[in-house]
């Protein structure tokens, strides 16, 4: 099979993994030799018409797989054509793309062939050859196979910037039904193992001065959850997400709206969820992690365990807690301002700095290009005091009229 054809099959097979991040790793460059650099900030080298960033060469080593996960295009009983890169082909392809500045590095995953260890060994080989034979200093993300041996995991962590294991589905029952060979306990234990090693390496970097510490995935670990392939509601999704962040110190939990795959299994729902659900879940996840909201508060903005798709979760919460408003932009503490719909963390910090010098007026907010229509019903400024907070039609006033209000999705019926 020609290289181009392999690339087409194995990139097509990899595209359902949402992660393409290339950020958060150690700083390094090629001035002392080798090829490539990482400077902390990730770079998206292109965007596809699906709106997703292309930062890494994201491919599978092979799409042959002995597991039969219903949601996966590569499952054992799917009819897709199969292909497999040689280790050398992958190394050359990564270097060729990198030299032309197409990519930040490689995100390598694979179907399970023969055994978890056999597969993991091939993945680690690619990373090792890139690092040791070619002095590759770019970003490497390796997908980890839950039951591969600890020695292989240690070597993977030595070469990779980031490791990940997909949790796949929000609830254990769904995983059992749709991915019979996968085991949630095993996935969690593997994530726990990675957390331990990442923390050890970090700790060693801090304390050891003389001997270099064993390197282990300096950009941490991440995971992905498919949304809408099973019946889990948003509360279950966010609860599992909070548990994953808290338990395993994950850098990111990616949500991937279930999208129809060619050659679909009969076990799957006929229609995909609206893409906006994924978006609302990300917004809710940020409120949980960076804005001091609790899960119950966020879910109070929706109905029956689901978030409101029409408006963002902070606005939904605010509309149901009008007694907490208005908030005075010139006097309220940071935590209160963070809860105002339309104010992000950066804006809040700028306003806090500015108000030490001068009282903030509505025109100041306009100059900062903030969404006044959304803000002013909830905010007191030097020259404005809202009187509409208890109006019944407030939602209609502040909800966006376009964009996500009417979710657009390819018809799938």
């Amino acid at each position, binding site marked *: 099979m020609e*290289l*181009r054809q392999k690339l*087409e*099959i194995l990139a*097509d097979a*990899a*595209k*359902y993994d949402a992660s393409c991040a290339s950020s958060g790793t150690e700083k390094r460059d*090629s001035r002392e*030799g080798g*090829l*490539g*650099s990482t*400077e902390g900030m990730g770079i*998206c080298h*292109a*965007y*596809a*018409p*699906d*709106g997703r960033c292309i930062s890494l*060469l*994201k491919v599978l080593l092979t799409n*042959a797989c*002995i597991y039969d996960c219903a949601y996966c295009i590569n499952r054992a*009983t*799917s009819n897709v054509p*199969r292909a497999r890169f040689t280790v050398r082909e992958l190394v050359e*392809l990564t270097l*060729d*793309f990198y*030299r*032309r*500045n197409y990519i930040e590095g490689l995100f390598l995953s694979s179907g399970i062939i*023969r*055994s978890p260890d056999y597969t993991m060994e091939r993945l680690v080989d690619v990373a090792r050859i890139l690092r040791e034979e070619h002095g590759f200093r770019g970003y490497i993300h390796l997908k980890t196979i839950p039951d591969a041996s600890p020695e292989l995991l240690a070597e993977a962590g030595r070469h990779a910037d980031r490791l990940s294991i997909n949790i796949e589905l929000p609830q*254990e029952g769904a995983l059992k039904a749709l991915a019979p060979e996968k085991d949630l*306990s095993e996935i*969690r*234990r593997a994530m*726990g193992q990675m957390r*331990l090693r990442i923390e050890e390496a970090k700790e060693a970097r801090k304390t050891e001065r003389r001997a270099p510490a064993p390197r282990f995935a300096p950009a941490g670990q991440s995971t992905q959850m498919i949304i809408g392939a099973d019946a889990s509601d948003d509360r279950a999704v966010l609860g599992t997400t909070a548990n994953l*962040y*808290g*338990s*395993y110190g994950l850098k990111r939990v990616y949500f991937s709206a279930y*999208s*129809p795959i060619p*050659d679909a299994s009969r076990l799957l729902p006929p229609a995909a969820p609206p893409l906006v659900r994924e978006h609302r879940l990300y917004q809710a996840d940020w409120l*949980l992690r960076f804005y001091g909201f609790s899960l119950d508060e966020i879910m109070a903005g929706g109905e029956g365990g689901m978030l409101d798709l029409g408006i963002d979760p902070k606005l939904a919460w605010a509309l149901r807690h009008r007694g907490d408003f208005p908030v005075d932009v010139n006097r309220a503490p940071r935590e209160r301002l963070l809860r105002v719909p339309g104010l992000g963390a950066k804006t809040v910090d*700028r306003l806090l*700095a*500015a108000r*030490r*010098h001068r009282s*903030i007026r509505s025109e100041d907010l306009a*100059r*900062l290009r903030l969404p006044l229509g959304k803000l002013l019903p909830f905010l007191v400024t030097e020259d404005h005091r809202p009187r509409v907070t208890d109006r019944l039609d407030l939602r209609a006033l502040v909800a966006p009229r376009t964009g996500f209000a009417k979710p657009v999705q*390819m018809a*799938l019926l």
Partner: protein
Amino acid sequence: MIGIALPGPADFPAWREAARRLLAAEVAPERVAWHLVGEAAGLFAHEPVPEPRRAGITVPRAFPELAEVVIRHRDGERFALLYRLLWRIAHGEHGLLEMATDPEVIRAQAMAKAVRRDAHKMHAFVRFREAPEGRYVAWFEPDHHILEAETGFFIRRFAGMRWSILTPEASAHWDGEEVQMGPGGRRADAPAEDAKEDLWRAYFASIFNPARLKPAAMRAEMPVKYWRNLPEAQDIPRLMAEAPRRVAEMVARGATPAAPRRQRVLAADVEAPMSADLFTQDPATALAALRAEVLADRGPLAEHATQAVFGEGPIGAALLFVGEQPGDEEDIAGRPFVGPAGRMFNRALEEAGIPRAEAYVTNAVKHFKFKPTGRRRLHQSPDAGDIAHYRPFLRREIEIVGPRLVVSLGATALRALTGKPLAITKVRGEVVKSEDGVPVFPTVHPSYLLRLPDPESKEREYARFLGDLKGAWREVQ
């Protein structure tokens, strides 16, 4: 008017030098006409800079950091704007840059943002083509005067290659040792093609998911103005046009039957089933079977925990310690007493002179009960229902290990063993009976010692805990 000619469009040192002289001479911003060498200075801009009248001033570090970026903006007003900001900072508005709502600050911040974004897009969208002699050459059209400042990024990344980046205004050439700035070029100066571009375009087309079209998101991050220099962008119209048909076909095909020949399956690992027979003569087998049963437990706490944590230690140990439940670290490691409280417990055990071979450690509740909050898991005390769920496991564990004395650490353990909510303060130091008639020696949980606020009570309580351990050890001698 005073005309100031700068040698280059983004020459920050030259601007700073001129601005210092102007400021020292108390020249107000309205009297300065900034321009580039070779440009007309304006009709009346022929006055010389007067003699200095004040000493140099210090400005917040944020100003030069901002100015160095703003000066790369293509806006012809940038030199004057920066000097106005500097003038205001030097004349009573020291904290000016913190005034996020000031119109001139907003303008300068917006310019800096535009320059940074342009630089970031340059890092992303430069596309090298391999020229015949092995040099990599790119044609790029930035919005602002950023080429010279951004060569550093490409040197760090591609230090081992020889490369050139050509822009309409200037060019940069790296030979592996140093960078040379040269005149601007034309698109035709770069190679017209590259052997690997077809592969890259094939990758771009294949990684795209036609079932989720979001062209606005794509254009927001990869504005159309860059497309003409991106080889992959020429495929975008075709990919978008084909997407609805591809999705319709997927849906029309519907679910497909399983492939007739399944991918090769692993020979199943057949594990010998463990005997769960508690009355076996061999306690090691019985303990292993119980352990397997606990690990497979799917009780209410199992749903969110990583794994069940079973006891550890030798069968026949004289002392069996029962703690409350695994904590964060125990949950991850799958072993009891490895977290902060466990480490303190181990230290105390050693100081009390109790050999490890004489101690078996376990917990009343086998899964970590917690509340996820933000980035951490908050320990939650097990309730009566949780304790009751795990009690049968604990009783059998004690029965198999067969200690001479059980030491209960904390209230939960005591309750699990006696079935009664006893207060530790009342029974501490005496031996009580468990429901099964096993002697139980109650003391506090080591995490209680960790929670004590002041060093004095910490020391006192630690000594008391140590005394309890020694007392328990004496009981079994």
